[in-house]
């Protein structure tokens, strides 16, 4: 991420950063510099529109490509059979090699290659608290302070804690949330997209602050709703809202592979954090915001 102060030669500087602006890779402050300039400069605004349109149309064109309907079934079949694909081995088999030693050697080569080349992302161990803190600090370094709160608790609680294989019952989760907050669970469950299942709902604390934390899972992807009481003067209002269509301004920024969306609800700050795509996370946050805000305002009253 880059931060720049625009001044002399603002058009040139703006255009140099337009690509990173479109990719949502600038610091919030630099984003604002770009936005401020574009609002005043029609030439740069036109250039931004053209570049944004190119990206949108490219994405639409690529995603219009149909996928062979039988491909998924073929992959499932191969995984379950444990066979290697035809293109990588057909030549060897056709050359008259005995099949089983070649297949065994190929498997060993593939396994060794995978081990060496695709190590999964290394995360601190569950017992490595200093490593976890360092990781959270590192990935949230570029975030606005008000958004760091939600990301920190999401990583601390959803990523670095292990869940039982089978989630607790809804009744148990509601009991863990307590009388005041148990009603939050059905409110959120009704608003998250289909396919997400709640795997954790509880009170937790991170960095000296207490939170209500709900975690959902879908196909291995985690999504958190983190709610905490705001400290004095703490507000995302200084940031530019990413979406306001629900009537509740939602502020969002990316940090490492995470998307962090936040919104205000009276004395509370609420966050939707995931490693979904930017638009998906923002859409979920925007959908959740009115219902969650209404619930929290009732709690506050």
């Amino acid at each position, binding site marked *: 991420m880059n931060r720049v102060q625009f001044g002399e030669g603002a058009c*040139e*500087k703006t*255009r*140099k950063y*337009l*690509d*990173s602006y479109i*990719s949502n890779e600038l610091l919030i402050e630099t984003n604002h510099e770009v936005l401020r300039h574009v609002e005043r400069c*029609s*030439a740069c*605004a*036109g*250039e931004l*529109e*053209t*570049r944004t*349109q*190119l*990206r949108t*149309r*490219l994405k639409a*064109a*690529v*995603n*219009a*490509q149909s*996928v*062979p309907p039988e*491909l*998924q079934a073929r*992959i*499932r079949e191969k*995984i*379950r059979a444990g*066979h*290697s*694909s035809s*293109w*990588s081995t057909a030549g060897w088999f056709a050359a008259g090699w005995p099949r089983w030693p070649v297949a065994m050697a190929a*498997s060993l080569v*593939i*396994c060794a*290659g*995978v081990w060496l*080349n*695709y190590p*999964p*992302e290394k*995360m601190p161990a569950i017992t490595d608290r200093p490593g976890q803190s360092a990781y959270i600090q590192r990935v949230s370094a570029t975030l606005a302070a008000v958004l760091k709160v939600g990301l920190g608790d999401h990583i601390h609680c*959803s990523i670095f804690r292990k869940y039982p294989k089978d989630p607790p019952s809804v009744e148990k989760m509601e009991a863990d949330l307590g009388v005041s907050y148990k009603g939050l669970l059905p409110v959120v469950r009704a608003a998250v997209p289909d396919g997400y299942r709640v795997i954790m709902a509880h009170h937790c604390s991170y960095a000296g602050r207490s939170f209500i934390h709900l975690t959902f899972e879908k*196909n*291995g992807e*985690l999504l958190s709703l983190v709610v905490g009481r705001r400290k004095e003067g703490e507000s995302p209002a200084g940031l530019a809202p990413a979406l306001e269509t629900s009537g509740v301004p939602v502020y969002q920024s*990316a940090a*490492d*592979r995470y998307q962090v969306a936040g919104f205000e609800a009276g004395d509370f700050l609420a966050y939707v954090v995931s*490693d979904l*795509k*930017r*638009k998906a996370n923002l859409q979920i946050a925007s959908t959740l915001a009115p219902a969650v805000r209404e619930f929290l305002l009732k709690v506050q009253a």
Partner: protein
Amino acid sequence: MSHRGKRLNPMLFSKKPRTDEFEAAALPHMNDIYRTAVRLLGAGSGADDVVQDVYLQAWKSFSQFELGTNCRAWLFKILFHTLHHYRRKWLNVRMVKDGEDILEQTAASGPPLPEQITDEEMLAALTEVPQDFRAVVLLIDVEEFSYKDAAGILNVPIGTVMSRLSRGRRLLREQLVDLAQSYGIGRIHQGGKSA
């Protein structure tokens, strides 16, 4: 040599991932993996086989995968590794070198975008963008990976991702203009207004 007394490590078996877990985590990304493979190899150039191989390799190392980490980025990393070997073996690929002055070039306005272009024309123009630039454009603009994730997937520095992205977007734009002119499409989009 007797093996009596030796014990197999039970973790080798207890850590073995289950097929249904792998399928639930990895298969939702198959369409994105396939479309990227097609755009890099060309339709009918074995993208189906590459995607199957990607999933087979991912399955074999899935025991190392940690729930909650970025499965999608991990699959794309395997895809690009597979494509690298596949292209070297089967295809004649134009390689490019990144220019040092690329970021400077992005300060200038690019050519205006043709107003009337179809998906097919957009994809045809994309095909003309050299592979290394095309790969970054696909990862950032279509798949919406962060610069950092894209750098990890391609195993290049973030600065290289940035320069290839800028250059790739610009080349795509130039290709579209060339294509539109060759089709006799005269109308162009200039800063939100039709010329």
